[in-house]
């Protein structure tokens, strides 16, 4: 589009410049007036004639070229680290909740379907190897209690929780 406009303006400027040169060397008198008139008409034609061609063109503005989708590419490394940190906060929160309920020392690991904004918990792994538990409770009871506590805290189904150690 700009090339077409550029040619148009150059043709106007060229016709005018030619008129300037001719005007310099033509002697005074009627001849000069005629020459000026002719070059004036030539300049007007240089302005007007290309206009229909310019107006008939199809002008289109596309964001991308061809099939290329134009989008802002986000920093996926940062976003991954950010959502991973959010999952880590929930893990630590769960550990603190278990400690507050008498099961201190548990190590909780969340398994999600990916680190992104709408990630889902697909599994919760609780390592109870170093856990302190209330006296008089069997290992199975401890597992069962811990799973129940974590399931209520995290609002997930108990089938997603695995306790070991």
């Amino acid at each position, binding site marked *: *589009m*700009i090339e077409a*406009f*550029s040619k148009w*303006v*150059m043709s*106007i*400027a060229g016709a*005018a*410049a030619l*008129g*300037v040169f001719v*005007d*310099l060397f033509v*002697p*005074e008198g009627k001849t000069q007036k005629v020459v*000026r008139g002719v*070059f004036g008409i030539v*300049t007007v034609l240089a*302005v007007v004639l290309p206009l229909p061609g310019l107006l008939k063109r199809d002008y289109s*503005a596309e*964001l991308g070229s061809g099939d290329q989708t*134009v*989008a*802002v*590419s*986000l*920093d996926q*490394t*940062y*976003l991954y*680290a*950010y*959502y991973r*940190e*959010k*999952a880590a*906060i*929930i893990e*630590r*929160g769960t550990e*603190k*909740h278990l400690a507050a309920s008498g099961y201190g020392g548990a190590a909780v690991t969340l398994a*999600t379907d990916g680190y*992104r*904004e*709408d*990630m*889902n*918990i697909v599994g919760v792994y609780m390592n109870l190897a170093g856990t302190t538990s209330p006296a008089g409770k069997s290992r199975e009871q401890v597992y069962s209690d811990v799973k129940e506590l974590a399931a209520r805290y*995290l*609002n*997930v189904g108990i089938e997603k929780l695995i306790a070991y150690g």
Partner: protein
Amino acid sequence: MRIDKKAKNFWKRAQEKPFYKRVSPAKIFLFLFLTIAALLTALRPAAVLAAAGDNADAEKELQDTVREQLDNLNLSELDDLIGQLTAADAQLFGGTSFKDKVRSVLNGDFKLGYDNFFTAALELLFGNLRGFIPLLAAIVAIALLYGILYNARASTGSEGTGKIIRFACMSVVVVLVMTGVTQLIIMTRGALVSMRAQMNVAFPALLTLVTALGANASAAVYQPASVILAQIVAGVMTGVVLPFFLFTLALDIVGGLSDGVRLTKASAFFSSLNKWIVGVVFTVFTAFLSIQGITAGAHDGISIRTAKYAISHYVPLIGGYISDGFNLLAAGTVLIKNAVGFSCVLLLFIGVMKPVIAIAVFVLGLRLTAAIIEPAADPKTAGFLSAIAKNLTMLIVLLLATGFMYFIMLMLIVSTGNIVF
């Protein structure tokens, strides 16, 4: 009327007996005491209820969070842009690394040095003046010489000789003017290209931070808007408006060479077209972006507060370790986003300041030259210089319009998600 009479009486009494003589000292003292007491109460720092130790721990945790997040954020392309700055510009920016700059803003070490900017602006002003003075002096000399030669020719009565002298002098003036104008066009184009490069690099980083905060509506608005700004708007400015400006220059030059050739209206057409294009693009883009940005921001403010959590099916708890942890993480992201946005604004300002001052100095110089030569030289020469000076303001408009649109976009993104708490 009664009110007027009362007002008249009041002023009459005030002039006869000033206020301080009509009110007792006790009343004045009481009034001052109450005012000072009210001010002190209002300005008193809020009572710190938490223990000093808790505050220090929270602050340390925030700093650690910010440091970790900043290490994860990729700002290397912005570092490359800083590397392209001149030594003076890099000093004004305050370093050669964008990330270090963001760190200094986060730590509160950075202070906006108004003195530095003022000094730099003055240096640019006088530096450009010193650079353009020889050029403008040459134009004055040529124009005055033409004036003398033209008057000398008038006494011998040769019209043709006069035209040739005029053509020769105008040609020299045109060449001198175009020397300066070419430098300015190169500088303007360089600044526009640099702004476009900054947009292509800054927006992904800022939109990453906005997305991390969960401001989805804003991110959905700003993603296409940033593409439109960086590609279409910046492309229109460099690919359409700048060439049209060159057309007006070409027509002014050819029209100025001879009395017989009149192209002022053609030049005015392209100049007017440019103003319309810039005006429409600027108005439509900023209006659309501001409205969309404000409504999206309001939506995100509510949605972020009510659903702050990344994991679905998780019932949000009011208070507690997880809520506080998420708040700290979000706070770190907000701080980084604002620091990055501020640093980008600083970079933008440094990039735009230099060409704008150079163009302004040249425009004023041309107008002054036209004023100097007008009494003694050909009026068409003075008219030509004024026309060029008038057209050159389009370059300033171009830079400021593009810069302002970029600035608005940055500010909207920076203000997004700040109402997280």
